[in-house]
């Protein structure tokens, strides 16, 4: 489905941070991503939602220039991800759900390494490190091995590593999976703060409360985008939906033709029926 969603709040003359045009990725006979198109305005928090295996990660990998699309084009900050991969990579920060940190390096050394990888000078690096350690609440932990940090700290250090080169686009792949509720809140506060500074954010998540705080969300199912709008519009447009989770489950039911249990409360009594 091809939805040109451009919420009114962003105006019409804004340049897009992400532009995806008829993007398709096939692995043999299997089509992982099937002719998707969307545009994400700059400075937007974009929630990319969908069940596991729906094509989210494949799309992200194409946007990062890691996978080559079978057909279609994608632009990041106006740069073609296939032809200008190096520029695209320099302008995006990526954080995977596994917080790919070097656990045998300290907090400082992890940041230093990624600073070096993005070719930062020493002065810039030291200034940024100070900012990021402050942002991630990692003061006093600079000399600790990353492996000894607990989940929330690791997550924020990984975010710091992804931000060290001041990317214009931040891609977060399930950044809050396996993190406690408090760390989840702290993390999303940082995300919103970054967005206010003009950084565009693409985030995938299975937490619908997180998704509701996005400016724009897309549902992807079986490699196709079936919805692309603001969370408010999606909830309002779905009869009987109280929240984004209801919308998500309705959509999956519609497409797969199978009913999903309504609420978790109902599940408690499944065996007693």
């Amino acid at each position, binding site marked *: 489905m091809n939805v040109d969603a451009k919420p009114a709040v962003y105006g019409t003359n804004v340049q897009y941070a992400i532009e995806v045009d008829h993007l398709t990725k096939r692995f043999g006979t299997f089509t992982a991503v099937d002719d998707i198109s969307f545009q994400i305005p700059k400075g937007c928090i974009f929630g990319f939602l969908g069940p596991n295996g729906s094509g989210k990660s494949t799309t992200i990998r194409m946007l990062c220039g890691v996978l080559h699309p079978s057909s279609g084009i994608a632009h990041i900050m106006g740069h073609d991800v296939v032809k200008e991969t190096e520029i695209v990579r320099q302008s995006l920060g990526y954080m995977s759900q596994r917080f790919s940190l070097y656990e045998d390096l300290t907090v400082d050394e992890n940041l230093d390494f990624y600073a070096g990888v*993005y070719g930062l000078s020493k002065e810039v690096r030291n200034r940024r490190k100070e900012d990021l350690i402050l942002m991630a609440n990692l003061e006093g932990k600079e000399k600790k091995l990353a492996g000894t940090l607990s989940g929330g700290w690791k997550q924020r250090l990984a975010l710091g590593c992804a931000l060290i080169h001041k990317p214009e686009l931040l891609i977060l792949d399930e950044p809050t999976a396996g993190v406690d509720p408090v760390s989840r809140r702290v993390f999303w506060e940082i995300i919103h703060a970054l967005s206010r500074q003009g950084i565009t954010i693409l985030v995938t998540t299975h937490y619908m409360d997180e998704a509701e705080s996005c400016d724009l969300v897309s549902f992807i199912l079986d490699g196709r985008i079936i919805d692309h709008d603001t969370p408010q519009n999606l909830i309002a447009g779905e009869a009987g939906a109280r929240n984004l989770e209801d919308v998500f489950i309705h959509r999956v039911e519609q497409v797969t033709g199978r009913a999903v249990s309504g609420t978790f409360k109902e599940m408690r009594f499944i065996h007693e029926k």
Partner: protein
Amino acid sequence: MRSRETAGKAPRRGLFSWKRFTAIVKKEFIQVRRDRISMMMPIMMPIVMMFLFGYAVNTEVDQVPTAVLDLNRTAESRAFIEHFSASGYFRIDGYVGNEQEIQDAVNADVIKVGLIIPADFDRKIQRGEVVAPQLIVDGTDPTTARTAFNSGMLVSEMATRELLNERLSRMGGLALKSPSVRVTAKIWFNPEMQSVRFTIPALIGLILQNITLMLTAFALVREKERSTIEQLIVTPIRSFELIMGKLIPYVAIGYLGFLFALSICMFWFGIPVAGSLPLLLSIGFLFVLCSLAMGMLISTFARTQLQAMMAMVFVLLPSILLSGFIFPREAMPPFIAAIGYAIPLTYFLEILRGIVLKGVGMQFLWKNTLMLGGFTLVILSLAILRFRKSLD
């Protein structure tokens, strides 16, 4: 974070970045330094392997346990037995009363050789007739059996001739003449034919290969296992920078192990380098690069350290068996020996033994060195190409 300092001046694609390269080198060095096993490897591996192979692997057989069945019991038979024990190859452990006892002792693995002297031994000697003492050899272990058999024949021949001569001269006759054609044999490079001199220099090559292969194979696989590679591939890093940057610390460690093994060879086992030491050190460096490339190649296939370990067995085993490290390549069937030519260690062993034992120089070793260089180039390019693909 309001400004966009870096976005505009992104490096162009295809440019080697010194900053990215050094960032990787630095990171690898820190990781190696924190990893105790990697740090111990260049010290422990040479010590353990050199002492194991230096002392346990010994193909020189002497003092073979022997039992004697002397049915003659005369001065002649005793003199004959004396020749056996004096030769050093046989150790007379005891005398038995019948053949069955020899059989039992062999079965019980108490003796390896039985010597049976017939009852008419002295009479036949006196008559100048052919005497036929019997040597029974336990053939379970061919190395021991072959040595026992060959030296037994030799000792027995010499002993009988001496006994005959003695008798003839006592009778006032002429001593039996030795055959008129006599080969004068001279053994070069290892005159005492010590197997240590054959094994230890070759071990330097094997150790060098093991250390570098293991460390490099694990280095990249570790990034895959901990999924840090996912993060790396979305950065502007080029695979050439990544591979080269990761190799540097292992070049250092592998070479350190090589130097250490060489010192043990020279100063502990007292095997000096007969040829040019600088030449050995430079070709050794080439071989470090070659082993690194092999390790890299393995790590592009393996997804876990366990898989890398199994792949390594497939490299290490043939390089121990087919390279001529212990088993002479001359004895292999041509087909098997040909496989040995596909193993870089084969060439390096010839170079090692050439320089250390024979003392020869480049005029004899250039072919092997060229092959080694060729292997390094091909394997390294293959590793880089495969690595680039495995990132996709």
